[in-house]
């Protein structure tokens, strides 16, 4: 929509219809009454079991479905339950009390897997060890619900012949009538407040997105960016400040400077386009998932604009009827510690197939002890699934058996890579935006 007067072109930024769907992640009415995590596991099992039970007749229609306690030796059947992976190298708080300094090494690199890991299936009635070569423990984690077909052996294990995961959830059709390109920009791991943060590099990003950079062609591209999503770790508050002790006056600046610096950048951004900011593990937000939105008082400048939206982690929203779900990385990072895959995208695929955003919560990933729901269950497959704070930019278009199409995006840490991601809403194509200040 350029005005063709000489030298006076006004470009208008495109708009997209935004709907925030974070309600299920916001902790509002929940009251902690001393409950433990058995309830969230029960809700998860119940929900996933009913989904699996509708899929079992198409999978193996002639086999009976038993409970664990109802297993009979030698009788072929199907059981449905939650997986528990026994890992001897998994750090346990009781290790410091154990008398022997056993096989657990002092410093373990990223992963706690060992060849001795084994899987156990559990339902309300009991648990049974899973045996057999079909289920490789390295591909599974505690907390997912699956159906297994096999029979009980004389040792009391359950020999698995086949297994069924819920698979991708049904997906609402993406609107196909859009003819114009509209872009969503993703960035994560800004880490304002650390040495790794390069203000010039981030300013380049801000200028590009807001349209203050480049000539008319460049500005035309920027005018098509309808939304910016900041997926966590925008600032880095040293964890020493989270201990609850009073902060000495000389350290006050270390606490407030990063926040103020970030607010200055954010104000420039929100003045130009809608921005969603999510908390990450280094942001001043609660530790356990779902992380609650960063408080508006942190952003005195940016929160004055209605384009500023502080979101939960995980974050679920809709833009022009395209469903977006994403996290700041904790769910995938935790999978990386307890299982193996060829890349982060594969972990993301698995969470979609297991229909659960964070299956290791609450086992090894902190989460709120919900009583009447499990908000991380994926009931409807998103069109775009993004994860922030990863090592590198990766993307894949995943196709499901029921014509589902999901764009998986791994957003790299900006402070380390200078890379942001652009997604085209029209065709779900994705490309990287790289900013560098090295000449």
């Amino acid at each position, binding site marked *: 929509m350029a005005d063709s007067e000489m030298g006076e072109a006004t470009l208008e930024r495109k708009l997209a219809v935004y709907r925030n769907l974070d309600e299920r992640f916001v902790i509002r009415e929940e009251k902690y009454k001393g409950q433990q995590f058995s309830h969230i596991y*029960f809700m998860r099992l*119940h929900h996933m079991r009913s989904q699996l039970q509708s899929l079992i007749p198409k999978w193996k229609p002639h086999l009976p479905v038993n409970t664990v306690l109802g297993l009979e030796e030698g009788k072929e059947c199907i059981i449905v339950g939650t997986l528990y992976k026994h890992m001897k190298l998994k750090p346990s708080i009781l290790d410091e009390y154990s008398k022997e300094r056993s096989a657990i090494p002092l410093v373990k690199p990223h992963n706690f897997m060992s060849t001795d890991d084994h899987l156990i299936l559990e339902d309300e009635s009991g648990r049974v060890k899973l045996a057999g070569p079909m289920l490789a423990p390295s591909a599974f984690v505690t907390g997912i619900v699956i159906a297994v077909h096999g029979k009980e052996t004389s040792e009391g294990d359950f020999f698995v012949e086949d297994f069924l995961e819920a698979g991708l959830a049904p997906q609402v059709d993406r609107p196909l009538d859009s003819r114009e390109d509209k872009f969503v920009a993703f960035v994560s791991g800004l880490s304002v407040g650390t040495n790794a943060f390069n203000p010039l590099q981030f300013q380049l990003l801000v200028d590009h997105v807001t349209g203050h950079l480049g000539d008319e062609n460049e500005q035309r591209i920027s005018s098509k960016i309808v939304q910016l999503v900041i997926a966590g770790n925008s600032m880095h508050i040293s964890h020493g400040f989270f201990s609850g002790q009073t902060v000495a006056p000389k350290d006050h600046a270390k606490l407030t400077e990063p926040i103020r610096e970030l607010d200055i950048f954010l104000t420039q951004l929100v003045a130009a386009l809608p921005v969603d900011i999510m908390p990450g593990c280094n942001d001043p937000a609660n530790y356990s998932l779902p992380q609650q939105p960063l408080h508006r008082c942190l952003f005195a400048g940016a929160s004055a604009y209605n384009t500023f939206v502080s979101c939960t982690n995980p974050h679920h929203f809709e833009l022009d009827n395209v469903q977006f779900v994403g996290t700041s990385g904790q769910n995938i990072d935790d999978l990386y510690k307890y299982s193996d895959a060829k890349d982060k995208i594969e972990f993301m695929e698995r969470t979609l197939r297991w229909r659960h955003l964070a299956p290791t919560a609450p086992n090894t990933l902190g989460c709120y002890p919900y009583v009447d729901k499990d908000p991380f269950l994926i009931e409807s497959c998103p069109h775009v699934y993004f994860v922030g704070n990863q090592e590198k930019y990766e993307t894949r278009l995943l196709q499901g058996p029921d014509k589902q199409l999901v764009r998986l995006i791994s957003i790299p840490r900006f402070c380390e890579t200078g890379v942001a991601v652009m997604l085209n809403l029209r065709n779900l194509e994705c490309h990287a935006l790289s900013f560098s200040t090295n000449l």
Partner: protein
Amino acid sequence: MSSGDIKGFYRQKKKNGGVTKPSSSSSSSSKKSKSKHYTGGASVGAPSAAQTPALVTRGGAIDLKEEYGDEEEALRQFDMDMKYGPCIGVGRLERWERAAAMGLHPPLHVREVLVGLASGSTACSSKFKCLWEGLV
């Protein structure tokens, strides 16, 4: 323990291995299919229902049937039923509402007892908490 008259120790034995009292209360327990007697507890899937009544009550005294009445018995059976999920850490009424929202059709008489208690003047507040409250 004196010389083995275990039957005398239990002043009262459960009649049907755990089925709740065959009075008006049991008529409304909806799931009476072959493998799902309203016996509660670890009997899900097991061929026979082996139920002992929960012996120790909140006061610490050995809990015998006469001391807590039929209502509490029905509430405890509801607590112990695995079908509705864990009972610790949730109030009985909340657990009932949750089970109803999940479509599990929890027995209506349990809710009547709990709602009746809420409005009654002699409401014993300990009945809203599950069996194991304060003990675990």
